[in-house]
């Protein structure tokens, strides 16, 4: 994740000032050229809602980076974390919330969601996640599909404690298009949800889905070797396109190539749906062949087979705790995948890919933790929380902004009504950028999407 930390926040500035896209171009001989296009044409208009300076006292804290504090006080103000302290009197000037018996963690970050592009209700008219009209569709952007009224956002908030999520295109295509990272705050349009300064991602997919979708139509790819051929040919075009861009040569605008050039220059992060160890290994070499880096393998059910390789390459694995067997490429999934990846020193992430699963990512982490401990992989609870906030933040290039409770970071905070790795625990309160966006005790702090207004179940506990 070296690249991502560097980039977070810079893309927006570059775009708005029309500073050259080639600032990081390796070709030092070339003078920087003006970007021939606006890199941020649908800018974030997200803003934090008002909050009050708050001290949550007497809590157990997992700080998201592996730290644990007992009987601590968490301070935040002006949308930012101020401090996590133990001992001493509570400072003046804060609204005090007594959290005795409760836990505080950073908000959960789901690196793999289709909320908004495969929303509820799951009707054809709202199914906007796969532009399955060609295996390489890097030109599409998930944010142009995200329906900001998906009721699923509210469930992810209230039951899941999810404060940030990446919405990805689906996996019908080898190149699925751009992802968008959003704050879990309802808005009238997707721009109002977009995480300020988060880099874009590129969704890619290995394996069964692309070859099935196109092979069944008698089109390429029909095989895994076809997958790789289309991938490589597309990357070869992208390398050529970027070379022209870097040299300032005239090029026709090509939205797909712009995205891939963004990957090659390190501005856009690759999120690659890839179940099998052998295919992940091929993708790693392909990335080297064309000069890009994979941020994260998603649905990486076989990461445990190459955990050493993934650690060496610095690639994250986004995993389920116990999904398996629904398709051939998920047949070798094991319940100890997450702890074994962690044990190898690789970056482990718990992800959902599911409007239900996103409500229980903490529970998924707990299951994996227990399964790991039973085979002697003893990971402390507070370290396991890195799978839920800090590691996904790294994978998304936003770890300098959120994902842990370090002072100065966004006050994306969950107060849990008990141990968050227990099945008996739910969010009590959730703050996003210091604003109270969910309160279990206050029905008015429970968002209700437009779709649900005036329909059965409106505003109910869910």
């Amino acid at each position, binding site marked *: 994740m070296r690249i991502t930390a560097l980039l977070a926040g810079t893309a927006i500035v570059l775009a708005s000032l029309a500073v050259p896209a080639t600032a990081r171009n390796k070709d030092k001989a070339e003078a920087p050229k003006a970007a021939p296009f606006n890199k941020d044409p649908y800018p974030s208009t997200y803003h934090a809602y008002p909050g009050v300076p708050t001290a949550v006292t007497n809590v157990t804290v997992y700080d998201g980076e592996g730290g644990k504090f007992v009987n601590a006080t968490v301070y935040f103000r002006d949308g930012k974390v101020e401090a996590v302290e133990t001992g001493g009197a509570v400072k003046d000037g804060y609204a005090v919330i007594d959290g005795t018996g409760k836990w505080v963690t950073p908000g959960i970050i789901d690196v793999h969601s289709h909320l908004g592009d495969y929303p509820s209700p799951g009707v054809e008219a709202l199914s906007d996640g796969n532009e399955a009209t060609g295996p390489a569709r890097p030109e599409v952007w998930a944010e142009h599909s995200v329906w900001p009224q998906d009721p699923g956002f509210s469930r992810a908030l209230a039951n899941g404690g999810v404060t940030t999520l990446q919405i990805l295109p689906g996996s019908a295509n080898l190149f699925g298009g751009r992802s968008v990272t959003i704050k879990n705050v309802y808005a009238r349009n997707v721009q109002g949800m977009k995480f300020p300064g988060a880099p874009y991602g590129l969704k890619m997919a290995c394996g069964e889905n692309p070859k099935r979708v196109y092979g069944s139509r008698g089109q390429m790819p029909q095989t895994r070797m076809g997958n790789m051929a289309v991938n490589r040919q597309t990357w070869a075009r992208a390398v050529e396109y970027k070379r022209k861009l870097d040299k300032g040569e005239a090029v026709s605008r090509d939205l797909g190539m712009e995205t891939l050039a963004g990957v090659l220059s390190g501005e856009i992060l690759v999120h690659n749906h890839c179940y099998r160890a052998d295919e992940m290994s091929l993708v790693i070499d392909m990335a080297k062949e064309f000069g890009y880096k994979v941020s994260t393998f998603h649905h990486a059910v076989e990461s*445990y*087979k190459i955990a050493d390789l993934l650690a060496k390459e610095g690639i994250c694995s986004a995993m389920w705790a116990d999904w*398996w067997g629904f398709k051939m490429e998920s047949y070798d999934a094991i319940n100890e995948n997450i702890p074994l990846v962690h044990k190898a020193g690789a970056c482990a992430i718990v992800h959902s890919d599911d409007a239900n699963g996103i409500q229980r990512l903490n529970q998924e982490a707990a299951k994996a933790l227990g399964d790991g401990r039973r085979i002697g992989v003893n990971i402390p609870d507070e370290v396991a929380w890195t799978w839920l906030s800090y590691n996904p933040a790294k994978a998304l290039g936003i770890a300098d902004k959120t994902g842990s409770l370090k002072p100065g970071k966004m006050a994306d905070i969950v107060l849990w009504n008990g141990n968050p790795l227990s099945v*008996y625990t739910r969010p009590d309160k959730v703050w996003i950028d210091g604003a109270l966006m969910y309160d279990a005790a206050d029905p008015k702090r429970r968002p209700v999407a437009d779709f649900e207004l005036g*329909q059965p179940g409106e505003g109910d506990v869910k």
Partner: protein
Amino acid sequence: MKHLLLGMAAIISAPVAAETIAITGGKVVLGDGSAPIDNGTVIVTDGRVVAAGAKLVVPAGAKQVDASGKWVTPGIVAGFSRLGLVAVDAVEPTNDTAAKQSPFNASLTVAPAINPDVAAIAVNRAAGVTRAIVSPEASNVIFGGQGAVIDTGADFNAVTKAKAFQFVEFGETGARIAGGSRPALIAAFKTAFAEAAEAAKGVFPDNALLRRQDALALVPVINGTMKLFIHVESAPDILSVLALKKDYPLLNMVLVGATEGWRVAPQIAAAKVPVLASALNDLPDSFEQLAATQSDIGRMKAAGVKVAIGMINDNDARQAQLSMQYAGNLVALTKVPGATGLSWDQAFATITSVPADIVGMGAEIGSLRPGRRGDVVIWDGDPLELTSGVTRVWIDGVEQSLASRQTRLRDRYMTPSEGDLPNAYDR
């Protein structure tokens, strides 16, 4: 639960005639909704529970198993599943849940298709699931066929009860299958029952919609000797289903899914119709589930409905192992203002004795009451808690292997890099 061993899944201790097992010292949960018993004993003789509780005398000659510090419960009963019918969902030849091209429907019976070799059997057994209610899917006609009750033992005798119920799709799916509307669905339903009534009299009209064997298969349904599992989600559809009781008073209905059951819970309770409900649906996933909430089961239970957890269309061929997590989540709701959950004891019963009762087998499975089959699980902690796991499993008094291809893969790749030989030699 007989003695045939399956491949690698070797049974740890073979059954012995007149064997008595006494599991002592654990926290014993009977599964019938009663509170856990500290330092309890479970005695199983010849494959049946003879006693479970506190202060029991261990019979002379019993094989003793120390469960100190652990929990001892009946095996989990998967309340609605397709376990044993599928090896890999998306690998069509291995998926025996539905038969779109078949000319038959209500007469299809899953029992002979239960495959104890599918990985899901071993995986769920190792997770503590010892019995499952297994249903076919409906595909070309609203009636899917006859479901079974099975065990998850490592042998070739999986079927506990064949033809335990008939399955029918109501609501959106039923309407689609019936031709595209709810009126078409009701017509299909009533016509099928009329033809079954004729079939009972030996009359098979030439222009019947159902084939002879399908009409005959519905005879025990209309006379109430076979349960009818009805998948239905919305409140209006549930009321339509309950109204069918006026026309067919003998119907022995069980509602499946029932996402909006809470809205009509008093009516369901008054009709004395039990429910195998989806525990955690809380999204308006379809227009028949607009009022979905995780409080559905708690509210139905509070209204007097007999309700257990089922998992229709929720990875139901593989993930019965999530039953414990789902039940635990219902307990979590008791701490959420405005929500309705279940007590721990009630929640545990929704995955053991209540589904067993609903399928008509409460005297056989689902609890550690005397006379029940010796399906016993020892857990290293609270069985509903996420970090807990299973340490030992018995089915019909026979101790089971906890190995699966998942544990074999895990063991092979504990250290992923190759040693002196490729990993393929490591087993």
